[in-house]
């Protein structure tokens, strides 16, 4: 009797902690959504009304007219789609080479590839800026897109792990049938690796969509800004002018976050997988 009471109070305590933490994690996001639907006076009201009397949906359209968010969205889509295409093809080609072919120097080069993951970006960012400036690529999308076509160590690592789990007999049978290595990669390995490719797509989407540092450095013109960069421009503009219009800034932030949240719920298992493969390499 005492034992079951003890067990139930333990479970009750666990749920109390779990729910309290869940509220703590979710409240900032609810506060953002709530603020975005208030009037300007509403966000400064004490006490705060979590559900405003009148829902100001027009904050969203107002926020979008302050800056050309449609343009920013289009820019971001162009960049992100290009980055995903480049990343998937280049990283899977390289991963195929590292996992299915045998050649001298392979393992040393793969070690080098993995090691570059630990290199802090600050060491290369300045020379890269100089390089892209000399090429006349500053204030174009090219510095944000082109590097993706040369393979990215994390994704190469992730795809190689997956390719290694595919039996070599597939390649050998196809080779005897006279298929070229490239055909094996394209017609056999890539289709089989769909789950791993999906993880790469999700991760490179998140990385490119939310990138701030690179657009900040390379994009100067207003009309070439990405959503993330544009959101920061909007913030600077709004905070610099009198009473901060938090309701509009929150509406814009919600808009930028929506694709993230949608992708998160659609692809949660790919996140979990990618993070865990990443964790294994420790």
């Amino acid at each position, binding site marked *: 009797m005492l034992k079951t009471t003890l067990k139930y109070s333990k479970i009750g305590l666990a749920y109390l902690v779990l729910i309290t933490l869940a509220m703590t994690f*979710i409240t900032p996001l609810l506060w953002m959504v709530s603020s975005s639907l208030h009037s300007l006076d509403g966000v400064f009201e*004490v006490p705060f009304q979590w559900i405003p009397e009148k829902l100001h949906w027009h904050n969203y359209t107002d926020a979008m007219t302050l800056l050309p968010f449609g343009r920013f969205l289009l820019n971001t889509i162009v960049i992100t789609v290009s980055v995903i295409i480049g990343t998937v093809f280049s990283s899977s080609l390289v991963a195929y080479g590292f996992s299915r072919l045998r050649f001298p120097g392979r393992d040393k080069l793969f070690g080098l590839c993995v090691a570059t993951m*630990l290199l802090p970006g600050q060491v290369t960012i300045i*020379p890269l800026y100089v390089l892209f400036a000399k090429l006349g690529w500053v204030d174009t999308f090219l510095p944000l897109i082109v590097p993706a076509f040369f393979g990215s160590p994390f994704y190469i690592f992730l795809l190689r792990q997956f390719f290694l789990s595919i039996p070599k007999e597939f390649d050998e049978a196809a080779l005897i049938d006279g298929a070229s290595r490239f055909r094996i990669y394209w017609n056999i390995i890539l289709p089989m690796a769909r789950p791993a490719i999906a993880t790469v797509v999700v991760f490179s989407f998140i990385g490119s969509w939310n990138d701030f540092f690179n657009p900040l450095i390379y994009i100067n013109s207003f009309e070439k800004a990405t959503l993330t960069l544009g959101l*920061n421009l909007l913030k600077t503009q709004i905070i610099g002018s009198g009473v901060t219009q938090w309701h509009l800034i929150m509406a814009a932030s919600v808009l930028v976050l929506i694709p993230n949240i949608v992708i998160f719920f659609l692809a949660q298992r790919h996140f979990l997988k990618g993070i865990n493969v990443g964790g294994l390499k420790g």
Partner: protein
Amino acid sequence: MNWLKPKQTKAKLLSETIQGYLFISPWLIGFLIFAAGPIVFSLIMSFTRWSLLSSPQWIGLNNYAEILLDDPLVYKSLWNTAYYVLFSVPLGVGFSLALAMLLNQKLKGMRFFRTIYFLPSVTNLVAISILWMWIFNPEFGLLNRVLAMIGIEGPLWLQSEVWSKPALILMSLWGVGGGMIINLAALQGIPQELYEAAEIDGAPSWRRTIHITLPLISPAIFFNLVMNVIGSFQVFTQAFVMTATAAQGQEGGPNNSTLFFVLYLYKKAFQQFKMGYASALAWVLFVIILIFTLIQFRLSKRWVYYESGETRN
């Protein structure tokens, strides 16, 4: 492959080598252009004075001498960064471990809680930073409203020299979801038999945690620790977005209390265009991160447990 004649084997090996290098050529070329080349170039640049407009001027070790001896903002930014790393890393690693253990119980609804805790870490850092600027607003922000409800008058947070760094550390704890997931996966990989055996032996649950759970997931904790240290040394976006006032060049305030090392580097390189000096700063950061990472790997031999019984380097 015994039936192949040696000559054919050799030809096959050569063709496989050529094809192998063709397959990895995107990375190999990319490595030379986007990593190896810039590393060498960056090192050379760090010995020059260069504003991009004129040609670079060789000044030997002057940049490094100025960094070490003559630039108080370097030490200010190092101190700010150290403060951030010192608090955000242990708190983040500990919190992500506690959350993972909480989620690793056999109770209903764990997937729901996992989703909620994980969500904030997979978002847009600029949007999140702006959200937290509003949360930290001294008069009308969520945090000080909540504190006021329990009778505490909250600090000025981002507008206070004392509280700006704690504010950013607090915000970083909201994003521990990634580390939590890695810990959770490690916890779920522990064979149940180990616990059952310990239970039969009558080991109390806290002893099971210390002697079974923690050693077995120590590689995951170690991974989180290393990545967290590297990431925290490079903290940039939050400080850049949250501490800027209207004028460009004001980032890192108030009174440079959130001028982190990478933010300082960014300002030198991309606002003042002191490319040589900024390159030298990057190498100083690289050496600092390298030293801390090596120390962690060295110390890890004492506490990280690998099942195969061998320790890694």
